[in-house]
């Protein structure tokens, strides 16, 4: 089944509408607009990404939609690694030293790692405010402001959830948050 491009975009856009609706109350607030925005986005996206990770059958974690793409396991670990890096820098807290795990580890271990990364983000961003949103952060070999790092982080959550949805659909599954 192939839908026209416009129809595909329409459906993708609906996902982003859900994310947008969740953030609307925050946008009305003047104070700490950026910090509140990332916290609301985190609450919404962590639920969706975690639920989608759990939904994928354990034997499909090595699935990838194209030869050059990531496996679902790699994607899951990629989300966790990104969360630790970005949330530690944005929140100004040290990144915890965790035992290294491989993207071929069993599903439980990968789910546990991605959940822990979102818990870490929740704690790291809890006390964030907008007073130093212009401060320059160093993320790997990239220098950027805290506000732009937040924009990148929220953007990648959207992208990663859209990717997870693709992987699940290709295996006849639907993300649980879409079923409600």
């Amino acid at each position, binding site marked *: *089944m*192939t*839908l026209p491009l*416009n*129809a*595909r*975009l*329409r*459906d*993708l*856009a*609906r*996902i*982003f*509408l859900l994310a*947008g*609706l*969740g*953030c*609307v109350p925050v*946008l*009305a607030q003047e104070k700490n*607009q*950026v910090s509140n*925005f990332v916290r609301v*986005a985190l609450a919404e996206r962590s639920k969706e990404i975690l639920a989608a990770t759990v939904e994928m059958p354990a034997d499909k974690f090595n699935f990838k*939609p*194209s030869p*050059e*793409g*990531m496996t679902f396991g790699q994607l899951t670990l990629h989300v966790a690694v990104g969360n630790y890096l970005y949330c530690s820098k944005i929140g100004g807290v040290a990144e915890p030293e965790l035992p290294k795990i491989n993207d071929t580890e069993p599903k439980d271990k990968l789910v546990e790692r991605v959940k822990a990364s979102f818990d870490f983000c929740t704690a790291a961003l809890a006390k964030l405010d907008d007073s130093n949103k*212009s401060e320059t952060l160093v*993320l790997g070999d*990239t*220098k*950027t*402001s*805290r*506000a*732009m790092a*937040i*924009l*990148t*982080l*929220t*953007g*990648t*959550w*959207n*992208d990663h959830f*859209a*990717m997870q*949805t*693709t992987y*699940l*659909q290709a295996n006849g599954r*639907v993300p649980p948050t*879409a*079923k*409600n």
Partner: protein
Amino acid sequence: MRSMAALFLTLVLACSSVAAHDLPMNSIMNAFVKVEPRQMDLVVRVPLDLLRGVPFPVKDSQYDVGASGPAAQLALVLLEDGFVLSGDGVRLTPSSSSGRLSPPTDRSFESYESAAALADRPPDPPTRIFYDKGSFDVHFTYPISSPRSVFKIQTQVAADLGSGAMLTVRYLPVDDSSRALIINSGAEPAALNPAWYHAAGGFIVLGIDHILTGIDHLLFLFCLVIPFRRLRGLISVITAFTLAHSITLFASAFHLAPQGAWFPPFVEMAIAASIVYTAIENIVGANLRRRWLVAGMFGLVHGFGFSNALGQSLQFAGSHLLLSLLSFNIGIEIGQLAVLAIMLPGLVMFRRLVPERTGIVILSAVVTVIGSYWIVERWQVLNQVQWPRLDPDDVVSAARWAAVVLIVFAAAWMLSKWTAHKLHRRIKTLESAGRVERAP
């Protein structure tokens, strides 16, 4: 529930091209920076694929433009830190900002006036913008202390993409001609109107950096000097190389070099060939008295190579184009002399370990192998370029270049002959006066 399931079923198709990361590639933001006596205006068109984190409301696969106000407000607050402007080293803070969603068909960014007017105007709710298409247009106004300050600009929007996200800036100063420059996201701040000493210093450093990291230029230089035992013989060679590459470097900066996409790979190929030729000449026994000709001839090619490296950077020269070119050239010479200062003593030491002729052959053979590898590698690139059709203008241009080269070399040859003749006569005079010993 079924409709939602259907929705997600279609997502597999929506994202069918997803690879490791569904990131925007080569996104370009267009900007105007206009300086006025008391303020500076920045107007930027940011493609929406760079703002995926901003929750613009979407309805039926299109942005709900009428309800985009709160998200637009958030985007403005975020983008205040996406574009960093400074005046004389002090960060500028916007005193006002406005922004709106615009469809991809909008052409307002053809001029500053229409772009600023558009960004200040609320969007029309019936405007149709499909998801991820179109742009968010912003207008920031910054109070400034003087329009003569040295202004710098940096973009941090999607800095993680580096050269995948670029900002093209059209800079409109108060009493000077406008300029355009392109900067990568996350790059160091770029001066919009650099002071002459900043431009000169920056380009000297760039020249030094280019020669020190340009292994092919260094290898050619190495080939040129391998057979020389005395510094005096080298002077004409180094001078010829320097003069020749300066000629083509300046000619390129003033757009006298061919502009086609074929030219940079052609020059790279010719540089590799120059290395191999000189190395082989060393092996078979070079005529060192004519080495300056080889240095000069291939110096012209290397000058084009330098200009390729300089091309993107010249936009940061501000109004100091000539000075920046000179500075870049000075930087190259400084780097060249520094390398020679290490290379020549190294060669002297090498000659103590290995018989001279054997040493020349060994070193030149190694360089020949490296150069040949580059020839093969660069030939593959050159093979893929689209060659231009030769029209009468191209023939005239090529003939003109050939004439220039011939004239330069004829003049240099005559000068060398005249100098040798004068020197010979001077020695003869001194000999006949008995002030120097007659040569055996």
